[in-house]
């Protein structure tokens, strides 16, 4: 089943065009890796999917689960199963992790016409999910991401994903700043959440995460366009050869355009 169709997507931030015509189709059950050098637009693509207000879509379309995604507010996207694991998770002093998770979980339930979760049952659920990403339950009582280490923040992102069980998960450089143990834990969490009816987009600069989350497809983004798509072997080729051989081509294509 086709879950996401991106057609000729163009987007700007602060009047600067970052995405210059992206097309991508993702079916349920697939894992797609988006790779590319810094500044290629891969994080922008992730943010646009989640509805970040700083980005303006200037052209193209995104159809998610048969709906026009661009017509939906960020909370509606989340309620319909889109989840962005932030590259830089936001600290929210004064709001406890437990409260935040419960509010998010109940918001999603409410949008489906389901009643709010029983607080004790919810606590059970969260503690199970925390075990998945090896998080200390004491972190529930801390303010969201406040004073968390880099690794704790990324695990907290995966915890939220585990609680919300999205249909489309977008991991934006979830591997950045993680040591190998944390990387394994995070990848294990992501893999455990894979199902035939959901899909994952892994945005990453490096191939190493893809050793743990094995993609079905790899796309290379450069200059706001997908310059190469292939299977998981493409990631290995990038690891060996770097991005230059592709980005030079993109620059050439840009020059010709």
């Amino acid at each position: 089943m086709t879950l996401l169709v991106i057609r000729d997507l163009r987007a700007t931030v602060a009047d600067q065009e970052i995405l210059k015509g992206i097309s991508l189709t993702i079916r349920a059950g697939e894992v797609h890796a988006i790779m590319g050098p810094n500044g290629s637009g891969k994080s922008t693509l992730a943010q646009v999917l989640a509805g970040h207000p700083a980005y303006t879509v200037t052209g193209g379309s995104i159809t998610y689960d048969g709906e026009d995604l661009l017509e939906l507010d960020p909370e509606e996207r989340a309620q319909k199963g889109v989840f962005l694991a932030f590259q830089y998770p936001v600290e929210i002093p004064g709001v406890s992790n437990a409260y935040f998770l419960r509010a998010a979980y109940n918001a999603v339930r409410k949008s489906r016409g389901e009643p709010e979760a029983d607080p004790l049952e919810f606590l059970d659920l969260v503690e199970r999910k925390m075990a998945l990403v090896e998080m200390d339950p004491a972190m529930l009582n801390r303010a969201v991401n406040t004073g968390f280490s880099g690794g704790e923040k990324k695990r907290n992102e995966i915890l939220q994903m585990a609680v919300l069980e999205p249909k489309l998960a977008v991991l934006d450089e979830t591997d950045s700043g993680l040591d190998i143990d944390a990387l394994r834990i995070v990848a294990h969490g992501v893999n455990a959440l894979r199902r035939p009816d959901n899909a994952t987009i892994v945005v990453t600069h490096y191939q190493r995460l893809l050793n743990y989350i094995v993609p079905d497809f790899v796309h290379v983004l450069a200059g706001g366009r997908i310059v190469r798509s292939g299977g998981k072997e493409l990631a290995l080729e990038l690891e060996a050869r770097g991005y230059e051989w592709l980005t030079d081509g993109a620059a050439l294509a840009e020059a010709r355009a």
Partner: protein
Amino acid sequence: MSVTGFVSAFRAAPPASPAWLTPIRAAAIERFATTGFPSPRTDEDWHFTSVAPIADVEWATPKGARDSGGASGSAAAGAPDLSSFTFGGGDGARIVFVNGRHLPALSRVGTLPHGVRILPLASALDEPPVREHLTHLAVPTAAFTALNTASFTDGVVIIVPADVEVPQPIHVLYASDAAATGAAVHPRTLLLVGHHAAVTVIETYAGVGGGAYFTNAVTEVDVADGARVAHYRIQRESEPAFHIGTTFVRQAKDSEYHGFSFATGGTLSRVTTEDVLGGSGAIATLDGLYMGDGVQHLDQQTRIEHVAPNCASREIYKGILDDAAHGVFNGKVYVHPEAQQTDGKQTNNNLLLSDRAQIDTKPQLEIFADDVKCTHGATVGRLDELALFYLTSRGIDAALARTLLTYAFAADVLQRIPHDGIRAGLETLARARFVAGSEPTTAVPGAPSRRQAVTV
């Protein structure tokens, strides 16, 4: 009302006074007659707050205020429901005034430690400690203090003897209902805490019937050597009411005073705390949270005088302003030449929720000692767009996300309140101020407006 209105009302019928108080009152009304109301043009401390709306009204004396002997329990008949204003006190003592009149039927003393006294001021004016202390801290130089000193008819005296710790908070509740409309009330509170004693006092000003009245309150707090006082001053006047309140604190050696000013009510309000750290090793914590919307004007003033050496002052005031509300914060810290080793920290943070909301913040340090550590800072900001996006990207609707972040802004200053019940009570009030319903989990956009949620 005009200055002359107050002055001639005083001369026509001066409030009952024992002989020792009569000349003090006379001097105070003369002082008020001379200074008149402060003006934003001529009085720097009033630069951001015009009291013309108070001065323009011919205020009356509230009905019954002058005969509050406290004799009749029947005064509770028809009394307003104050349940939404009592919290955090457990089964501690409570003394209730409605429209300036003591209502014994709504008050309760409970079980107090031996020697602790809670008295209506009107019947305690001849008590030696009252005579010894009343008007000594609140020297009536400023206009509103002078007016209160001349005009008060009742209030509360709390006396905690040396070495006594009062386990439960004492709640002083000054309520005004619709019958107070058009009246000026001048509540006077005196809190005397003996050496190495400890007490928690909640002082609430509550509007229960939407009345347009004027509260002009003065409180004096004397904190003896090694005593510990927690003092929560809650201003929840009715929407059209005016409130001017001044608290004078004097701290002796090694004492601790935690003052918290929680201000959400009234159309025009100003709350001033003046704390003199007169004995070495004293610690003052002055915190505050002011929250306004509509066209409310909320002014918070603090003045900390470091007179003695080795004292510390900590101050965090937070403001949340929506619609066309106007907030003022003016925090002064004076460090006298003898006050070496002063450790002072003052912070004022403001959150503006609308383009029309306004804040004037003025932290001031004046240091005349050379070996001190003092910092101050003020910020004005809006809700963090990135944090809003983060919350909404998890499915939380935008309205709840705003509420959460607004509340979170206020949370850290509330978390400094050590008493669980009072902290929880104020947290609930703070949440209620900016969302319908006190539990934000169940908040529904489009439910009753904030104002309705607050006035209950």
